[in-house]
């Protein structure tokens, strides 16, 4: 098997665009089945939305209640007023933003170097990236817990962000490398003959060309950090707790608390879903158009 894994996933993202050929014939059955599938895929989310917007006394009633109640946003109000949700949300955002920025700042030069240095070193490093991507999380997170405690940075957003940069770095490099590999090397050479240094060329020529690639990598890293549960569970306690950890602690408690967990889930989900829809369009426009015009 000689495939380059993430080449394919970057290509996959371009497939949201208009297809290149016309369909041979109309197939209404396919459309109906896909429509049903979409409803099925969304059903847990729809059900959660309904449960969260019901008054608490009927929210989890069995048999389920579908009408005769007044929809309410009380769960969101309670979430905001009776828990430290705002703090957890800020923590989650800080961790996601900091780790995305750091991951890109160190990942872009590394990925570029890997794409331009074809040798056994580069192949070996890529293999390591793949292996580290596949590691069981606890194999690095439990030692990190021990180390962060002895360094006195346990339960800080910075430690969590840094941990996530490292954990996602192999993936970041791997993804970015494949974008860089599509940019012809002649372009580097031309820019450098024109008097650019390697770093200057990376900044002025490569990064603008890599816009869609960097955005893709950034979105993935942001999503990973935003939704990370396991690492945050181990590396945070109270002062840097993130929303997923908060949601998990609300489970198995009282019904109002469960409903608040649902409300928190929705607030965590909505931005992610919006990103998924916006990013899909952007990536289609950026990539199918041929971002690499070399």
């Amino acid at each position, binding site marked *: *098997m*000689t495939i380059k894994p993430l080449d*394919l996933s970057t*290509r*996959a993202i371009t*497939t*949201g*665009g208009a297809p*290149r050929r016309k*369909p041979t014939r109309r197939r209404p059955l*396919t*459309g109906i089945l*896909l429509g049903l599938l*979409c409803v099925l*895929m*969304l059903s*847990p989310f729809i*059900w*959660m939305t309904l449960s969260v917007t019901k008054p608490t006394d009927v929210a*989890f009633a*069995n*048999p*389920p209640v579908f009408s005769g109640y007044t929809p309410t946003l009380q769960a969101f109000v309670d979430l905001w007023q009776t828990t430290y949700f705002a703090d957890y949300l800020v923590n989650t955002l800080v961790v996601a933003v900091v780790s995305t920025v750091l991951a890109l700042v*160190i990942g872009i030069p*590394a990925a*570029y*170097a890997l794409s331009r*240095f*074809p*040798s*056994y070193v580069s*192949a070996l*490093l890529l*293999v390591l990236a*793949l*292996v*580290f991507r596949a*590691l*069981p*999380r*606890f*194999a*690095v997170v*439990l030692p*990190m817990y*021990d*180390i962060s*405690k002895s360094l006195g940075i346990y339960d800080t957003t910075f430690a969590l962000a*840094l941990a996530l940069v490292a*954990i996602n770095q192999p993936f970041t490099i791997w993804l970015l490398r494949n974008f860089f590999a599509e940019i012809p090397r002649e372009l580097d050479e031309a820019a450098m003959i024109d008097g650019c240094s*390697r770093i200057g060329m990376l900044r002025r020529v490569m990064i603008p060309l890599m816009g869609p690639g960097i955005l893709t990598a950034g979105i993935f890293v942001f999503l990973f950090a935003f*939704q990370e549960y396991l690492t945050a569970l181990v590396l945070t306690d109270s002062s840097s707790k993130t929303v997923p950890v908060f949601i*998990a602690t609300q*489970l*198995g408690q009282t019904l109002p608390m469960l409903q608040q967990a649902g409300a928190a*889930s929705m607030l965590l*989900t909505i931005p992610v879903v919006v*990103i*998924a829809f916006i990013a*899909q369009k952007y990536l289609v426009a950026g990539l199918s158009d041929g971002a690499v015009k070399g």
Partner: protein
Amino acid sequence: MKTREFWVLFFPSLLVMGALLVLPLVRTVQWSFEQVRYGVPGEFVGLANFVEALTDVRFGRAVLFTVSVTVVTTIILLVGGYIIATAVNRLTITRPLVLGIMLVSYVLPNLVGAVAFSWLFDDSFGGLANRIIEAFTGNQVLWFTDQVPNGILVIANTVWSMIPFAMLIILAGLQGVPSELKEAARIDGASSFQTHLHVIIPTIRGVLGFVTLITIMDVLRMFDNLIPLSPQAQSIGNESIMLYVYSVAFADGAQRLGLGSAINVLTILLILIMLIPFIRGIFKEAKAER
């Protein structure tokens, strides 16, 4: 590019990965040979932790459960992903909408998706899906306290969250199949089913291999979704390997770090073995480029 330039550009990333991935990993390997607690230096005990893990019935059940879920999920994802990708490949104007909807379950945090899933199936939270199943079959399914139904629930949730990924990658593969190939098959009188089986699937087998690899890697380390979906995982025998590590080495002040680390090392070995074909692929490519 000069070697020096390469290392300058690569160094920051290397530093972060070395300090925050390699060092912790070395610590894990070291711990796996020790009797150790957090914050206290360990004591070397040889292979005792490995012996304990491999003879522990609970660990055996965790491996069995994890591997079963992984195998079933992978098969469903390959077949289902292929069928859905073929269907989506025929769409024109509605394609971005369908892809967007399909992506929702993939980008949702696993934990959130599993919470939402559990509400559909738990009778004490309304259990909409149960009412529907009951109306059709008259049976009540104990999704959370019976081993097999609970396993099915976990598989359903895993498939739900990963099928968009499988579908997207296979879709990308399908678009790379030259239309001449399909035409040639049709002219030769192949039925649509035969074309899929003998022409399209062999052409995209690399893509299918990639989906298989990522699925196996991700499902083998499942953790988040079991928290809401299998609250009684240990007593009904539906613990995943990672959940087992968590409960012996971290949860509620657990301190059996040596045992947990030994299991992590065993899991890493298992994953390395599975990665071998891909690693060879990368080296072959590097050789070709030289």
